[in-house]
Every structure is written in structure tokens, then in C-alpha cells.
């Protein structure tokens, strides 16, 4: 993975000094809170319900074992012993003191990490495919481009005060695992008919209050021009994006208002002035950055391992885990492993300091000391020998990281919600836990099969509810909390925005509502049809009719469980 050189180190060092002084000036009241706000946000520091939350950038989801150990250290030293992995492949800590935050940045810098531009109205951390570099269906490794763009976006002077936040995702595989269609810019690395490498450029996707899938504005952009072309997009957006209403300030609203074709034309005109200028990427720089993403020293192995096959046939639990949590690898004899952070009873995406240390050790022993964070809020060991999978599984299981549910209903994407976030209208984690409880039976869960359930505690859609096969959105109506349910959303190559099935529900009704939706699917599906296929074939009507046909039971928690489903 990428390593800092003296320039990267210098820039991070100067950033910490700058930020430390900003904190000092805030505490001395030389900066008002209003003035400090965007400064701390551009350093990942939010003020939440109980404390400050610090979001740390995990560039395109890649982590070393030492970096993960540093997260464990921060969790113990400065937080309450755990952290939360996010849908943007980052990690956030929820119980941070403002006074400690410069110290934490010093700690992060020791392992080449930072919190730059993880929030605020600027270009955010670049996200990508968690299987980049190892996926069996990969065409071109997107990571060198992601790193080049990380550097380009870092402290870009012209685009630090945009109308709104700006998210770039990049994918290089046949299957889009980076949800590029719901990003402000979604890049796909492609080859043209002459075999040249470039990008298909999509703009104007996003979720939030107005979910829109991005539109392709350029089918092929030769790779050398990626920075100048993006600069042109950002310059148009910076000048013309709306600033009068934060809910209409994302680039998607601008693209929609003037039309994607007009927007594309404006970009082309702007680009014409800077195309082939000094910001054009050079072969030498591409090679330099690419050299950090070389393949590790893979052993030469047979395509399948006899003991691995044997363990699968003898141990059903292991076979289940392999089926759901082990993914194909482009190198013979290897596989990628998804460690589930969706254990029943634990908020989706949360990991304790002990688990982080443990996963760091696992990656040292089994996967070249590297790992990845997925946008579904799980962790990946990308390069594991098949012969080691059984041992790895047993160890992971002992640490609560082998729930065999990847891609299933309980592998939910879920924001921190009203338990932590001051933006949220509603709690999300307790609902997620109640639903997980209802679908605890593995046979039932496996019978339901592939299903993405995404939940957000408010319209900002951090939990990606719009593109969940089932999407749940917490809404506030006259001071009471309700949950709106949509179905038919999808991510990937067939991205779609879900449709709301009808009036919203109380928190206690949610497990029953989900169960009814599932029942319609199980009754109506035809052979090998996934949930999303059935919804797309039938439309929402049969689901809607059944869900609202009879009164819906309300789950009530008793005793110690009443009121709070999460306890630490």
C-alpha cells in the first residue's frame, strides 16, 4: 500500500501544527464557534449529542495492521474502547475531547494517517472497491488513481469552501462495489477500443433528501487528464452550485437544474483551458504511485486446497461461513475474507479495541499485514491462503467476527443514528438490533438469501437507505419518531432508488414489517430469484398490500432492555 515520503510527512506535520493552533485559539476565544466550525469539520471533528466525534480518513479503505493497532490505541486511550467503521470506509470515534484532538492527530501521523477533509463542504476521502487489486473480476486496479486523487484533493486551495460536501468514488472492476452512481463524481477505470486506459465519468449522483443516480458526462477520459477534468467539474460547481439552501446545494441539484448535457458542455469548455497543462498526470508519477500497489509475494499454489474442501464438507458452520464471507481471488489458492462487524447485539460497524488488535494480528499472520474497510461496514483480509481459512475462521469466531451473514439481511448498513448523531431524527441502532434478533435463525436467513437492508436515522442518508433492497428511514413527525420503508433500491451495476411502500411505522412495528415484506418475497419468488429481482418483477403493490392488510404487532422491550437496546 502507499507509504508517505518526506513531502507527505511534512504536509501532515504542518497540518497538525495549524490545527493545534486553531484549537488553542478557539479555547482562548480568539475564534468564534462559527469560525471554528468549518475548520474543525475539515479535520473530521463534529460536535455530537454527548461529545465530539472524530472521523479519521482511511484512504480508499486500505489499512495496515499497524494503523489498525493505532485505532485500538486511540479507542482505549481517548475513547470508550471501541470505534465505528463507516459507509465511507472511514472510522469514527464518538467520545472525544476537543483538547485531546491535536494529540490524537499526532498519534495518527506516526502511522501515516490523518483526519483531513473527512467532513465539511470540501472534497472528502476518496472511496473505492474493497477488493481492489485482488478481485477476480477486476479490469484495472483503481488504487494508484485513488491515491493520486487523494493527494490532488488534499488542501486544494480553490475547493475548500464548496456549496456542500463532495464525494468521489472510483471503481475498476466489472461489478461496481463502490456505489459510484450515488457519488458526486463516480469514476470507472475502463479501456477504450484501442486498449488505452481512461475513465468513464459520472456526475451528480447522491442520496440525502433528493436521491439521484449519477449521469455519465464523458464516456472516455484518458487517464492523464483526470485531475484537469475534475478541476473543471469542481470549478463549475464551485461557482454555480446553489448556496442559498443547503438541501439544494449538492452538485446533483445543479446538474439536474441545467441538464447533464449543458453541464457536460460547460465542463468541456472550462477543461479546454487547462487541458494538457502542468496538472496533467505524467507516466512517471503514475508509475511511482503504482509501485506501492504491487502484488504481495504470493505463494505458488494449486487452484484448490484439499483440506479446505474437506473441512467444508465436514463442517456445516464453516461451509456456511465460506459461502457467505469468503470471496474469490484472482490468484490461485487464495481467497479474500470478510470479517463481519454485524454480530447480533452489536451496532453495525462497531469494533472494540480488542477486536481491532486481534484483526491486526490476523492480518499479520494471514494476509500480508494489510486489510480493508468496506462501505458495508465490515473488514476484509484480502490475501488469505485457502489452506489457512479453517484456522482463521476458528480464531475469528472466538472473537465474534465470523457471523456468516455477508450480503444477507442482517449484514445491514446502518448509521449511528439518534443514539449519537445530533443530526438524526431517529434512532437506528436499536431498530437494527431488533431486526437482527427477529432474523437470528440462520436457516431462515440463508433461505431469504441475498438482501441488502440499509437504514438511516435521518434524511442525510448516511445509512444509504435509498439504495437498500429494503431501505428504512427514521423520520420525525410532530415530535414523534416514525420509520419509512422503501423497497427496490439497489447498488452496483444496476443501481436503483427504492420506492416508499406507504405510511410510516413505529419503531416497535419494524421487525414485523420487515418479516411481512420477506413473507411476500418467499411466497412469490420463482426459482433462484433474489429479493431484489422479485421486487423488480412484481413492483411494490403486493408488498404494500400485505404489509398494511392487518394491524401490525408492536415489539415492546421489558425490564433491562426497555428504552435502550445498546449498552457499553
Amino acid at each position: 500500500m502507499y507509504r508517505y515520503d518526506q513531502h507527505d510527512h511534512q504536509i501532515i506535520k504542518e497540518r497538525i501544527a495549524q490545527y493545534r493552533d486553531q484549537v488553542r485559539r478557539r479555547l482562548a476565544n480568539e475564534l468564534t464557534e462559527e469560525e471554528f466550525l468549518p475548520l474543525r469539520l475539515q479535520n473530521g471533528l463534529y460536535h455530537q449529542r454527548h461529545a465530539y466525534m472524530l472521523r479519521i480518513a482511511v484512504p480508499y479503505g486500505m489499512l495496515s495492521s499497524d494503523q489498525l493497532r493505532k485505532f485500538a490505541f486511540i479507542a482505549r486511550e481517548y475513547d470508550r474502547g471501541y470505534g465505528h467503521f463507516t459507509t465511507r470506509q472511514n472510522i469514527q470515534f464518538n467520545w472525544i475531547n476537543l483538547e485531546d484532538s491535536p494529540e490524537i492527530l499526532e498519534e495518527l501521523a506516526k502511522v501515516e494517517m490523518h483526519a483531513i477533509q473527512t467532513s465539511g463542504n470540501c472534497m472528502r476521502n476518496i472511496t473505492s472497491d474493497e477488493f481492489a487489486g485482488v478481485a477476480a473480476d477486476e479490469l484495472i486496479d483503481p488504487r494508484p488513481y485513488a491515491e493520486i486523487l487523494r493527494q490532488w484533493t488534499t488542501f486544494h486551495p480553490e475547493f475548500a469552501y464548496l456549496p456542500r460536501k463532495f464525494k468521489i468514488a472510483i471503481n475498476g472492476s466489472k461489478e461496481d462495489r463502490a456505489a459510484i452512481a450515488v457519488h458526486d463524481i463516480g469514476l470507472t477505470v475502463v479501456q477504450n477500443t484501442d486498449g488505452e486506459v481512461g475513465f468513464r465519468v459520472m456526475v451528480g449522483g447522491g442520496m440525502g433528501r433528493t436521491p439521484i443516480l449519477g449521469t455519465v458526462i464523458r464516456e472516455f477520459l484518458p487517464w492523464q487528464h483526470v485531475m484537469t477534468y475534475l478541476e473543471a467539474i469542481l470549478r463549475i460547481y464551485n461557482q454555480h452550485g446553489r448556496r442559498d439552501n443547503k438541501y439544494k446545494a449538492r452538485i446533483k441539484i445543479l446538474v439536474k437544474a441545467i441538464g447533464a448535457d449543458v453541464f457536460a458542455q460547460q465542463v468541456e469548455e472550462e477543461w479546454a483551458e487547462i487541458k494538457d497543462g502542468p496538472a496533467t498526470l505524467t507516466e512517471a508519477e503514475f508509475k511511482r504511485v503504482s509501485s506501492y500497489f504491487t502484488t504481495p509475494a504470493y505463494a505458488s499454489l494449486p487452484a484448490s486446497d484439499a483440506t479446505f474442501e474437506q473441512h467444508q464438507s465436514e463442517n456445516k458452520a464453516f461451509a456456511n461461513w465460506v459461502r457467505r464471507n469468503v470471496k474469490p481471488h484472482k490468484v490461485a489458492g487464495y481467497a479474500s475474507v470478510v470479517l463481519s462487524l454485524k454480530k447480533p447485539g452489536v451496532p453495525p460497524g462497531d469494533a472494540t479495541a480488542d477486536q481491532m488488535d486481534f484483526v491486526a494480528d490476523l492480518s499479520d499472520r494471514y494476509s500480508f499485514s494489510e486489510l480493508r474497510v468496506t462501505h458495508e461496514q465490515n473488514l476484509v483480509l484480502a490475501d488469505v491462503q485457502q489452506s489457512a481459512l479453517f484456522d482463521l475462521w476458528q480464531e475469528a469466531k472466538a472473537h465474534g467476527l465470523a457471523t456468516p451473514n455477508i450480503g444477507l439481511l442482517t449484514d445491514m448498513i446502518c448509521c449511528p443514528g439518534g443514539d449519537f448523531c445530533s443530526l438524526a431524527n431517529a434512532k437506528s441502532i436499536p431498530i437494527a438490533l431488533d431486526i437482527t434478533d427477529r432474523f437470528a435463525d440462520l436457516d431462515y436467513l440463508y433461505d431469504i438469501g441475498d438482501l441488502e437492508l440499509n437504514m438511516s436515522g435521518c434524511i442525510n442518508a448516511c445509512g444509504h437507505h435509498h439504495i437498500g433492497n429494503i431501505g428504512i428511514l427514521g423520520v420525525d413527525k410532530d415530535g414523534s419518531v416514525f420509520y419509512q420503508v422503501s423497497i427496490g433500491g439497489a447498488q452496483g451495476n444496476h443501481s436503483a432508488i427504492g420506492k416508499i411502500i406507504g405510511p410510516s411505522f413505529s419503531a416497535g412495528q419494524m421487525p414485523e414489517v420487515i418479516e411481512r415484506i420477506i413473507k411476500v418475497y418467499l411466497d412469490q419468488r420463482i426459482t433462484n430469484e433474489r429479493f431484489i429481482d422479485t421486487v423488480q418483477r412484481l413492483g411494490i403493490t403486493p408488498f404494500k398490500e400485505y404489509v398494511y392488510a392487518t394491524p401490525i404487532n408492536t415489539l415492546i422491550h421489558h425490564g433491562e432492555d426497555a428504552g435502550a437496546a445498546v449498552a457499553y
Partner: protein
Amino acid sequence: MREIIKDKTIVQDDWAVLRLNEEETPDAVDVPGGKVIVPLKVWLEQRDSLLPRLKKQQDIAVWFSSDAQAKDLADDVSLFSLIAVDFPKFSDGRGYSIAYHLRSRYAFTGELRAIGDVLRDQLFYMQRVGFNAFATREDRNIQDALKGLTDFSDSYQSSWDQKNPLFRRTERSVVTP
């Protein structure tokens, strides 16, 4: 007279900024004598009468509101020795692109001044896109603000101040861990 930062030092400045009140209109407002920075719209409306004064005395400058664009002044930029860009709120980032365009597209070589809600923590970015003068907010210490220009010693990407990105300027290498 007030102090501003110009070319990295604090200097006395005698330009006045003309801001219209609600009753005044760009076509009818009286442009006072002395060195005055007028709104772009006033320049565009009163160009015929202001142009001879500008040529003779060089005591007229223009300021851009954040919703204006460099192309609104276009080739007239070369007439001025000073152009200002207003930041109604420090978080309104349009002025950065206006400045970049004035420098790059319209080749403005005179003084480019940030006015309005101009604060220390934005100065580094402002100087990168082409500003060389800063009328920082008068309720803040200008000596402190000066420090904002040197927050960073280097940058990854190109902009007006640094035409080449880092990878074209230096041999980048791996630091062995």
C-alpha cells in the same frame, strides 16, 4: 487609512470601498473622489464616465461580489491596477474561482485583493489562487493574520501560485520505515 496585508507585509492603504445602500443603484450612484473600489456593476453601468477618470488618475478599482464571474469584466481587467473580490462570508468559496479566473484566463497582473469576511485561516488558500493582498477583518489582529500565509511550506496540487504540481517539481521517493 487602514492596514492591509500586501505581498506578505502589513502596509497602510488608502483605497476606500464603495458599497451601495438599498436606495442606491449602480447606474445612478455618485462615485466619490479619491481612490475608490467600486462595485463591478457600477463600473459596468458607468463605464463611459469612469473610464477617462481611470485612465487619467488610476484612482478607480472594481470589486467582485461572490455571485459575479471574471468574465463579467472580461478584457477590461487590463485597465486596472487593483481588483478586489468580496467574501460576504468566509465560508462562501466562490471568490477563489473568481480570483483564479482573473489571473489565469484574463491574465490580470495587478493587485488582487480579498475584502469582506477575510480571516487568517483562509489566507493560505487565498494566496494560492492568486490573491496577493488581504483586507483582513478589522476586529482581528492583522499581525496574527499574517501567520496564516505560512501555514504550509508545500502543496500537492498546482494552482496560480505554483504552476506545477508537486510531482513535476521534485523527485519523490520512498522513505524507508
